[in-house]
């Protein structure tokens, strides 16, 4: 010990302190994740004393359900991808637009930032319920407004065609504040001199946005795209709180993979199948993240 250099000693101490969060993560993250793989190979009923090993049976069942468009599992996967493909781009584009505007103003910019950020720090359950009421048929805020302007009322959450979009809108709205703040931080990193140089060369604002701002925001964009994709893939709390009895309806039009996991595990007590679903979701998240990192992060 006494032969260690100061540098080595610092490293040892760093490892010792890292041991605490590491132990924590191993116990509550890594081990449960690994045990999910194990559970997915069993016919696992949490109430039972012993669990039967069934090999890949749960995955075979999952594959069969995925190919069957009538199955709720199939619908859950389709819906989850819809949430990602609709929600993520809208959220990023809207947040970037707002961030660009906020970057321009100096007066009251803190106030505006706070206004956009408040939903993000509010409990999702509270937000889900307030929006559920806003969306109510007949007497909900939106329908009262529609009537006021002489427009036809809409069923929103009560319609299998509108419910998914109604929920996506809430998620986009709530997550906006976070994306804006990250974009603003990214925008601050772009050196002012680049814009000045572009101006001298005769570039208009549009050109400097495409040629300077966007390329230099690339890291920020990738970071947000990955993060938001993952959070849309894990959609759960909005759906369970905004649908009747949390069933992901009407007609399974809003249900998600994670909601399926929960129902299979705790209503039908089929932990094995539920774990197979989580493993599948894990795989999907992993692949999408790798692809995004590979194709979106380019060097300029």
């Amino acid at each position, binding site marked *: 010990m*006494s032969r260690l250099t100061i540098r080595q000693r610092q490293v040892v101490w760093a490892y010792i302190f890292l041991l605490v969060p590491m132990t924590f993560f191993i116990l509550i993250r890594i081990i449960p994740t690994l045990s999910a793989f194990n559970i997915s190979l069993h016919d696992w009923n949490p*109430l039972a004393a012993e669990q039967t090993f069934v090999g890949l049976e749960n995955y075979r069942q999952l594959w069969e359900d995925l190919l069957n468009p009538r199955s709720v599992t199939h619908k859950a996967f389709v819906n989850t991808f819809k949430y990602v493909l609709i929600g993520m781009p809208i959220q990023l584009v809207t947040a970037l637009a707002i961030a660009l505007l906020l970057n321009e103003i100096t007066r009251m910019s803190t106030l505006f930032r706070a206004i956009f950020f408040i939903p993000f720090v509010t409990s999702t359950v509270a937000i889900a319920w307030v929006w559920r009421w806003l969306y109510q048929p*007949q007497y909900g805020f939106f329908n009262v407004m529609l009537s006021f302007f002489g427009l036809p009322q809409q069923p929103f959450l009560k319609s299998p065609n509108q419910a998914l979009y109604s929920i996506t809108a809430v998620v986009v709205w709530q997550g906006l504040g976070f994306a804006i703040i990250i974009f603003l931080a990214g925008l601050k990193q772009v050196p002012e001199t680049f814009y000045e140089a572009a101006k001298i060369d005769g570039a208009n604002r549009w050109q400097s946005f495409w040629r300077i701002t966007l390329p230099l925001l690339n890291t920020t964009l990738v970071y947000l795209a990955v993060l938001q994709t993952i959070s849309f893939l894990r959609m759960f709390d909005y759906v369970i709180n905004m649908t009747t009895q949390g069933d992901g309806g009407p007609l399974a039009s809003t249900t998600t993979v994670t909601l399926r996991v929960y129902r299979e595990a705790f*209503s039908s007590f089929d932990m094995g199948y539920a774990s197979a679903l989580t493993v599948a979701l894990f795989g999907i998240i992993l692949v999408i993240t790798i692809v995004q990192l590979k194709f979106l992060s380019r060097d300029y």
Partner: protein
Amino acid sequence: MHSFSKKMFVVVSLFLLGGLLVACGGTQEAAAPEVVEVTRVVEAEPEVVEVTRIVEGESVVEQVEVTREVEVVVPADSEVTTIEYWQYFFDPRVDAMNRLIQQFEAENPDVRVIHNSDVPYADYRDKIAASAPAGVGPDVATLFYGWVPAWVDAGYLIPLPQDEFPPEMIAEQFSPMVQNSQFEGEYWALPTAVRTLALFWNKDLFAEAGLDPESPPTNLDELAEMAQALTQYDDAGNIVVEGFPVGVPGQAHHWFREVLVRQFGGQPYSDDNRTVMYNSPEGCEAFKYMLAFETEYNTGSNDLFEDATQAFLQGKSALHIDGSFRVGTIAKSAPDLNYGVVELPIGNDVQSTFGSYWTHGITRKAAEDPAVLDASIRFLKFITTPEAGTTWVNKVGELPAQLEAAANEDLLADPILGPFAAGLPYAHATFFVDESAQRQFIVDAYDSVRLAGADPCEALDEAAALEQELLDEFWANHN
């Protein structure tokens, strides 16, 4: 440098010690000796006190029952066995069970019952599922009768010992629907109370619509006529007061299966519970009858005013099908509601209702320790007596499970509980293998007609096919 390695040593040893403590935590708990208590804190007989509450800006004096804790001396040499009872949180049920536990402990000073009711209804099964693998949880647990097969399959419940709970005694003394707790030739659970469905009507809204507030509908035709007469619309055609919203995810899916299908001449399931039969032509007629309220007569929808139950509580709907347990909810959250209860409308001379119950079973965990098992058996016996049923009906509004207490004249004459009790002899309880999944099939069939324009008979066929798949899977594992 020397002091550095000393520090290092201390830190590493602390880590090791911490790890050791974590590792030993479980075994230490298990090895703890049984506590012999000398004084125990129990709840005294409740007293009635006056409490002033502010309700909508006005102060209201209410009489409230309070229970104080008192210390009771127990002989020091007595071994006290502690058992755990679990149920979900529902105020009246918790009160009623607290009272029963207090009476039981007074009669059985050697048993202490821990009452865990801090579980929201929606999370009840989650908590049970989380507790079982950890080897903790209830010794006696409440469960919906429809969960019995699944819990038995998992080996979570033990069969009720036949010498303590003779099957003949159960068949003779308990409401016939309790037979559904029998599975694979054994009884696995016994209820304190049972429930049936009946029709609630709002007398004020009847008067507003020019109908006799004391003459609720008695048959299916009257129900359809009155529902339309009772519905009020605004100028834009929006429903202001619902005549009759059909709450399929609530209780109406039961009404369809066990009442309407039978009234239209069909049968919901085969006698051996293995085959779905509600998608017969008769069943489809029943389904169309139920759908017509929303799709043709426009008398309301479960989508309005949060849901059908909330609409009735808020005085926004005139007719509502619900169980006797709702009486307690109304007393608590809508005490001023001027309502009546009547037996479910007759259809084609057939009278039927859906019967169901929360029942109590003894778990595998209790059976591991003879003393706990013995205490659990005594406790289960105590909470399923006719007297316990009477305590329960007074607090919760559920009917006593024992026929002796259910046939009580005062109960039958009660204007609110009477119609529910009258339904007991003709009540049917569905044999469920996965209650929430089976409910969802009916909900989806109903929604696909009203929201996606599907053909009613085809939607019902789809539901039946999915449910049959579920039943086949279940029965494949049983003889």
